[in-house]
């Protein structure tokens, strides 16, 4: 009879527990690191971008004469509206606030305080409300993006005046307006209701959101059925052999192809060969669906394989054809897994900009697209365009757009996790 090993084991156990604790803390530290970086990233973007939710406005009293809009019969005349110098009306009213600004240069400097689109805005407002004609009205006009950035403290005033976008005099005027309560920050609805613009204060995200949504829709409609059918074919119909192996390897290869290559493919095949419209969400969606296809196929195959074979046996044993067994029983049970893969693939596609650049979705589009063949841009591309612009105000807008994109991606991934949870509970 040999001695018991209890003492030796107990001794080794101490060392083993120590190592386990060490490993545990190491894991915890790495998670904290990852989390900290995520927080820094999001915090940084948020601190840059959240201010874009507000836009500075100047209150001005303007009187639009009736003959700016109406002809002698009192009807709205397009010619008259066209002839009217709308910006001039706004500028004139602005100059009355600063009577001591004399001379061309000073007058022009005053004019730079309001948005270059203020006249356009006034025209729309008056045309919608003709009863405001011929009487003094107080309106809140958007400031120019430079004044807006100064008010938000994004302008470095220690920079020499000559290198700044606003002179000391202009800054002083802006400060006066703030003191008089004529310059306020209002919620920036334009950001959510307009498409892109040359002027940062008139630029919005809606065009890009709609463009992205259309492209995603096209991607979903094309990629999901194709991927599911491919997965069913590969799992149930393809005879194992060289050909099937070749297809399998290439689906995995396809998943690893850099996204810009899909863009090139879209450019040569869809645009140049089939002459499809440039910059259209339709083509964008087609390119993205090529990119998403392998992701969904791989996920679909995995979830089809996870369905208990006994279910398929039962259906086949009752005289079901392969297709009946697959569609009636296997597919419904595999669907949550397939949808999870689809959402993850779509989330990838949503954040993708490179392939869209190649097919021209990087165009400057000021209209919200109304159809999938209209020129449009997409959220990540819009972010790219804005972050590439000179104006500081576009940088702010790009940051806010990033926040939106990230929020949307988080939502999609959460939906995927929830679906998977439900799936696991059922089995």
């Amino acid at each position, binding site marked *: 009879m040999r001695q018991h090993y209890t003492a030796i084991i107990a001794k080794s156990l101490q060392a083993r527990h120590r190592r386990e604790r060490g490993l545990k803390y190491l894991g915890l530290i790495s998670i904290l690191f990852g989390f900290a970086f995520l927080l820094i990233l999001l915090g940084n973007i948020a601190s840059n971008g959240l201010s874009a939710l507000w836009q500075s406005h100047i209150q001005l009293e303007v009187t639009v004469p009736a003959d700016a809009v109406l002809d002698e019969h009192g009807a709205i005349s397009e010619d008259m509206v066209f002839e009217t110098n709308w910006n001039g009306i706004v500028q004139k009213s602005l100059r009355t606030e600063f009577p001591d600004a004399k001379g061309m240069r000073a007058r022009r400097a005053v004019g730079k305080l309001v948005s270059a689109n203020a006249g356009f805005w006034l025209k729309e407002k008056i045309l919608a409300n003709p009863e405001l004609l011929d009487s003094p009205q107080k309106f809140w006009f958007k400031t120019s993006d430079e004044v807006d950035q100064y008010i938000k403290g994004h302008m470095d005033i220690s920079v020499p005046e000559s290198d700044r976008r606003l002179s000391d005099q202009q800054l002083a005027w802006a400060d006066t307006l703030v003191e008089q309560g004529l310059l306020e920050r209002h919620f920036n609805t334009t950001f959510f209701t307009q498409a892109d613009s040359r002027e940062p204060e008139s630029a919005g995200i809606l065009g890009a959101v709609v463009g992205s949504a259309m492209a995603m829709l096209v991607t979903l409609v094309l990629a999901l059925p194709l991927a599911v059918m491919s997965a069913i074919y590969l799992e149930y119909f393809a005879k194992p052999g060289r050909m099937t192996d070749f297809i399998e390897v290439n689906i995995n290869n396809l998943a690893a192809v850099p996204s810009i290559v899909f863009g090139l493919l879209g450019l040569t095949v869809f645009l140049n060969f089939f002459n499809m419209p440039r910059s259209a969400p339709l083509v964008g969606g087609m390119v993205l669906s090529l990119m998403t296809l392998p992701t969904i196929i791989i996920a679909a195959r995995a979830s089809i394989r996870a369905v208990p074979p006994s279910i398929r046996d039962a259906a086949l044993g009752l*005289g079901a054809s392969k297709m009946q067994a697959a569609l009636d029983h296997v597919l419904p049970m595999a669907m949550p897994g397939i949808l999870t893969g689809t959402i993850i693939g779509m989330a990838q596609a949503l954040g993708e900009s490179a392939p869209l650049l190649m097919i021209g979705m990087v165009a400057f589009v000021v209209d919200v697209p109304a159809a999938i063949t209209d020129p449009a841009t997409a959220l990540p591309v819009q972010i790219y365009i804005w972050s590439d612009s000179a104006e500081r105000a576009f940088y702010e807008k790009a940051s806010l757009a990033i926040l939106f994109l990230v929020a949307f991606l988080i939502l999609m991934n959460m939906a995927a996790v929830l679906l998977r949870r439900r799936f696991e509970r059922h089995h």
Partner: protein
Amino acid sequence: MQNKMTARNVEVHYGDKMALDGINLDIPQHQILALIGASGCGKSTFLRCLNRMNDEISGCRVSGEIFLDDENIYAPKIDPVLVRARIGMVFQKPNPFPKSIFDNIAFGPRINRITESEAELRDIVHYALERVGMMDEVKDRLQESATGLSGGQQQRICIARALAIAPEVLLMDEPCSALDPIATTRIEELLEVLSSDYTIVIVTHSMHQAARISQRSAFFHLGELIEVGATDKIFTKPDDQRTENYITGRFG
């Protein structure tokens, strides 16, 4: 005694590995034939040959002939889907679809387009439930999920599901191995009743079960059919030493 099915020189390979070697076996009509043998002896493989389920296993090759009545079900012009509709199968683990009891049993008639009328479909489902003696148990919950039933009930639903398309032969692959003794008894009683109308082939690990319910038994060993004959004889005076060893529990 008329033979419902006849196997001639059936060989099965999985890749390079031979799973069954030259099986010749007659399956008499309206009787229960038990396939017995140790795990891996090929009895389940043989059972799956009888309704061409092995077609669905990749790398599995079947050669030889199996006749259903006078027709070789491995002849090129035969549609395996039709074979499986004529020869029902019940599996080791109860495998109801995650659907209602009614839909489970109606699945076979529906996909095979046996009837267009809902009333007739209901009759078929009720008849199948009557045959397995479950009508009283489930008549008020036909729309509830079949997966909520007990294991024994699920297995009887699976048998009813097979009966709903009126198969000529019923193949059973260890139908009681996942069930408790009471549920097993019920299934065995059911099989005895059914054997007057159906030809039944059952794979079983339980020698007692084979002795209780089958008229004939076939002993498989390492991919070969060693001995087949009346169950009484196999269990009392087997011809082959290997059969005797298995029966008496010396291996397997």
